[in-house]
């Protein structure tokens, strides 16, 4: 009986591909799988991972995005430098061996593979052969557009962080050796793709919470246009203004309270008016060691043990995260009562002389596992707080900046947007048009958007990341900061990724 060698899976969580689409509900579930790759690292709890050679939590998309965009810059310090890769990221010593970079590169490319897989499985030919119900069939165009959007988003982050990506579409079979696109090719692909899917995407704010709509595509377009000088050395600020306006026209409003955006119920409170795209987290059903879990547990002070206030264990993670003084200094006396200033400084020196000394440096209480109504998330480690990947406040600031950079639009609208943010933060120090400058924008972005995984990109756009024009503490591993070589504007391609695609993928210059 050699036919016994032909086995089938027995576990109720596992289904053979050939059987999966017998059930119409599978289409939405497989689509959810692409979204879930931004939040989950595996299918079996927060410690599971479908990537290898890297700790599960440190390949969570939002977390490695936070590490590569925020920890690498001037706002955040991670105390436990024996967590592999963190020291090299926050001291700007990274190499192609850095596990966090591998996590970022591989996790994001997995989104591409999952999206391509969905697109392969939902061609008209396949659907025709499966007798899909008309109800499901009518949803498929939007699903496919969302899959393409998530794929474009993945390429956007690769373009920004690594300057290149393995390029595969639904036409490339599983396990093939993909070609590589450089920044210009990626820029072109992202732009074309997002415009192409626009009609199939659901209108802004009309899709289910957690799913992407037209505004998410606009947001990515606005961002690539804002940074086009970095990516392709072209001025695209007017396109940026255009897409910012289209997002704003989509009906978004600022949350009633700045902090609503960062609370356990930000999927239901007034933040739903502001958040354009979240990465889901839930203490019970979507457990992950993602950016909100890390920041809420991590920012509990070693001295303060203020975890209870933010809905996690009293000690949290013992002071894993603190702020560098450059961020603290942006909240001067004029911001003492600004809602965006959540810094806790009492009894703490501002300077971090020894990174492992968790009693030094200020801490921050921006994110919370408490709800806007005073209750708490469902778990004391895994938070309910969704990560606001894109939100309206960022759009306002992008509009103002693109305007200042010559993209058109209206100065008074730009000033109004900035003041709307200040009003919302209960800061009476509003600005006038004379106050608006690019330097101001950079600082205001930090005050509004700190710890939201934007900072490195901003500093590069302002030409302050590498070189010596702006040295923050521990930049380049100097306690007061030292200059960084220019090639650090792009991360090295992980060694393992190059090795696995040796004919096409090459290392970035300088590494």
């Amino acid at each position, binding site marked *: 009986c050699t036919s016994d*060698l*032909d086995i089938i899976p027995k576990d109720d969580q596992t289904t053979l591909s050939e059987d999966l689409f017998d059930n119409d509900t599978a289409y939405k579930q497989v689509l959810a799988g692409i979204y879930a790759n931004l939040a989950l690292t595996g299918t079996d709890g927060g410690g599971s991972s479908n990537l290898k050679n890297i700790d599960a939590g440190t390949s969570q998309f939002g977390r490695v995005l936070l590490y590569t965009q925020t920890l690498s810059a001037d706002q955040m310090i991670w105390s436990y430098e024996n967590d*592999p890769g963190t020291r090299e990221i926050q001291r700007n010593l990274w190499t192609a061996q850095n596990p966090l970079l591998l996590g970022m590169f591989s996790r994001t490319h997995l989104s591409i593979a999952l999206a391509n897989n969905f697109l392969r499985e939902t061609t008209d030919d396949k659907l025709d052969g499966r007798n899909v119900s008309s109800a499901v069939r009518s949803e498929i165009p939007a699903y496919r557009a969302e899959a393409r959007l998530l794929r474009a988003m993945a390429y956007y982050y690769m373009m920004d962080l690594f300057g290149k990506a393995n390029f595969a579409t639904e036409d490339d079979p599983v396990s093939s050796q993909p070609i590589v696109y450089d920044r210009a090719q990626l820029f072109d692909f992202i732009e074309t793709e997002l415009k192409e899917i626009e009609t199939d995407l659901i209108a802004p704010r009309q899709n289910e919470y957690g799913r992407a709509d037209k505004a998410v595509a606009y947001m990515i377009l606005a961002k690539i246009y804002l940074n086009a000088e970095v990516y392709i050395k072209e001025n695209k600020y007017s396109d940026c203004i255009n897409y910012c306006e289209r997002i704003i026209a989509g009906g978004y409003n600022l949350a009633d309270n700045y902090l609503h955006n960062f609370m356990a119920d930000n999927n239901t409170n007034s933040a739903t008016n502001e958040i354009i795209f979240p990465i889901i987290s839930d203490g019970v059903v979507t457990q992950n060691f993602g950016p909100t879990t890390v920041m809420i547990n991590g920012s509990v002070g070693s001295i303060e043990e203020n975890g209870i206030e933010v809905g996690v264990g009293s000690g949290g993670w013992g002071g894993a995260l603190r702020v560098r003084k450059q961020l603290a200094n942006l909240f001067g006396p004029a911001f003492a009562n600004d809602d965006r200033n959540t810094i806790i400084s009492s009894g703490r020196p501002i300077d971090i002389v020894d990174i492992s000394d968790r009693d030094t440096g200020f801490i921050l209480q921006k994110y919370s596992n408490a709800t806007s109504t005073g209750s708490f998330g469902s778990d004391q480690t895994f938070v309910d707080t969704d990560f606001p990947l894109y939100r309206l406040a960022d759009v306002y600031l992008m509009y103002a900046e693109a305007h200042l950079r010559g993209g058109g639009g209206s100065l008074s609208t730009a000033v109004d947007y900035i003041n709307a943010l200040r009003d919302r933060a209960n800061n009476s120090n509003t600005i006038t048009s004379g106050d608006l400058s690019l330097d101001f924008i950079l600082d205001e972005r930090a005050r509004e958007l700190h710890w939201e995984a934007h900072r490195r990109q901003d500093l590069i756009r302002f030409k302050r990341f590498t070189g010596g024009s702006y040295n923050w503490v521990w930049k380049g591993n100097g306690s007061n900061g030292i200059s960084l070589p220019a090639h650090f504007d792009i991360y090295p391609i992980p060694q393992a990724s190059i090795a696995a*695609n040796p004919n096409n993928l090459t290392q970035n210059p300088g590494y």
Partner: protein
Amino acid sequence: TVTEQSTSIPLPGVNVVIKSTTTGTSTDFDGNYQIEVNTGDIIVFSYVGYRTQEITYTGQATLNVQLTDDAAQLDEIVVIGYGSTTKKDATGSVEAITSEDFTKGNIVTPENLLNGRVSGVSITTGGAPGAGSQITIRGGSSINASNSPLIIIDGLPISNDGLNGSRGILASINPNDIDSFSVLKDASATAIYGSRASNGVIIIVTKKGKSKLSVTYDAQYTFGEITDRINVFSGDEFRALVASQPINGTTLDESLLGAANTDWQDEIFRNTVSAQHNITMQGLVLKAVPTRFSFGTTNQEGAILTSKFERRSLGLSVNPSLFDDHLKINLNANLAFEDNRFGNTIGQAIRFDPTQPVYDASSPFGGFYQHRNGSVVSNGTTNPVASLLQSNNTGDSNRSYGNLNFEYKFHFLPALKAVLNIGFDETEAKTINITSTQVPTNDPVKGNDSRGFQRRTNKLLDGYLSYNKDFDKISAGFTAGYSYQKFTNNGGNTGNRRDDASFASTFADPDVVLIGFFGRANLSFLDKYLLTLTYRRDGTSRFGEGNKWGDFPAAAIAWNMSDEDFLKNSNTISNLKLRASYGITGQQDLPGQNDIFLNRYRGGDQNSQYQFGNAVIQSLIASEVNPDLKWEETTTIEFGIDYGLFDQRISGSLNLFQKNSTDLLFTAAVADGTNFSNSIIQNIGELQIQGLEFSLNADVIKNENFNVDFNFNATFLDREITELALGQDVRTGGISGGTGNTIQLLRVGEAPNSFHVFKQLYDTSGAPIEGAYVDLNGDNIINDDDRYLKENPGADVILGFQSNINYKKFDLSFNLRANIGNYVYNNANSSRAQYELLQDNAVLGNIPTTVLNTGFQRTSDVIISDAYVEDASFLRMDNITLGYTFNNISKQLKSVRLWGGVQNVFTITNYSGLDPEVFNGIDNLIFPRSRNILAGANFKF
């Protein structure tokens, strides 16, 4: 009548054959036989383990024969795959260890009967009660796939995968039931097991029923003590240290200090009492059926409070012969009940503030001292004694295993034999994890209450035909057969029933099915020139279409040189055999990856869902896939010499081998963006093992009253990775201290798992400079690129020595083992002995006193330093026992042997940690091995 020479006990089942014919019979249960012979015929009397006698018939009416123990061992039967051979006829590297040679002492699990006995075999057993062992033969021929040998019990290959609730795959087997081990090492011997043979094979044969009635009772008591501690600061020293702050910059809150002096290791360690009892009865049931029944109990206390291992085992062996011995039936049925309680808080004991007491009457947490502020728990280590006493983690596993074996000699053609073997092994385990609701936590969910179950089954059906015929100058043996085996595994867990966010879950692995066709030919010319050819074709369910089947051939030749005329009459050389073998074996054991060749999706569990709108949706994520996966292959070439001197007073062997594993089953990177992981198990990479094994058995003194023998074996091993996937280094060897930190590396040209570290800089006084490393690549930046490889965990040389000394009725035996050139990364020091750790989150914490030598401040600065990679070569005496036997005490009681001994007698090493014997080379607070005093009695009725 045929009797045993020394005791005059009749021997049943002795083969009595007229030489050069197939005419013969065998003795009955009283040793009697009848045979029709003609004058001048030579009658051959042969029996397993006895020297064959040839007597020429000269007309005697009765011919009484006394067979003597075969000291020469050359005719000793050696169990090999699907059959047996004699030592003289063996062409491969096979070592047999029978019950007389077993290591003596507090042997709880069967593999320890072998420890140190066989060259090339390395056994590392944990210190926990009933702990399992890591067994490797010749260092292991794989990297990512299993390195465990195939273990076969009475023809039933068992799974290497343990299950929750049990200590190990051999923990449920009573060592007292084991009759012998055969260790198959070279490809010629192992290839008959094809796809599972690359790491060698250990065949365990259990004791069978004998016709002579006997009852034995063994009792053994063991008193154990942990003799070593990881040195941490005492309460007084700790207070002084904290008061002397700032200690190199660290400021500590002295008000957190307590007034007690608690040695937390003393609090969690205990002296243990363990007992083993075995009763064995054997004899004829219904006056015809040899039967053996055994009952054993083992109760072993763990050296850490609350931990324990208990086993009750029942063994039944029924061994009837029918139709004039043409049909032999062996039924082995075993039941084992293993009850464990797990507990280990050594890490907490080393860390907990020594100035605090164990108990605190005012504590809301069960009366144990805990770091707290009122009823709010302060962030820090939990009281290690409370953790043990407030949790009850148990695992009960029930195992039933056995086999039914039919061996039929054809009536019309006795040279042809058919064997059918049906095997069965099923273990069901239940685990219970309960922690008290009084455990210190600020979580609204207090403690844990979860139940788990797991069930593994293993079913075997195999059968073969064998034909053995002696021709004029050639003897030939042919074997051909079929084997089918299926493994299943499933289970589940309730999750924490006190926590609404915790869910019940179940799992079911895909079945593993293995099917094989095998054949073997043994040819011997003039008894001097031997040839063995082996072939197996194996199929596995683990690989996809086109890759399921593999072919595993082997060949061996041997020359019994001492039978040649020029040596035949040598007084010095009694045996000299040269062997050479070549073969290919396979590997398909990928724990947990039984269906990676299939296109699958996996849905998230209850904690891994996604949310659309306010509804929860189960996401389905495509699983990594590799349809091209196939066998890993190991090619082994070996040259061996078996020697015997002075009428076998000295004997042994020397083997020289090289193993090359190719197409390693290896988890390696795949191009990002087209598969559903960044890294997938593939067939890439090569590993080479070269080695030399030497063994020497010597009967130093042999006379009526005084016997001294010893066995010495030595293994020299060199493992080197000769090819890695994509030429890439692979990081491995997770350590504590940092999330996902690794300390070992796989690199081409190096031994597997070499330590990957920074080169420490030292000041002029020889003290290490914190965080200062050699800039090996000279780029003026100390980063990951400056790590280098320093040594590896594998021993270059493994030595074993044991000796048995008998003087009149005294017996003394002891054994020694040594490893040379094995290195250990002292993770206990590297992640703990730094001053910053005096601050344990919100409270104070203890650290190892080795910090005084280094003065190190910060873990993250030093954890990758090569200073923590230490030479862990050792010499260890595992056991020494002394016994005295009283004979013929009464009519019923034939003998009593009283004995005592010491286990884990001494260890000589320069390694600074608790124990140099660490399997993977990373010493992260292993469960310590206690020193045991043993006392036992053995009664024979």
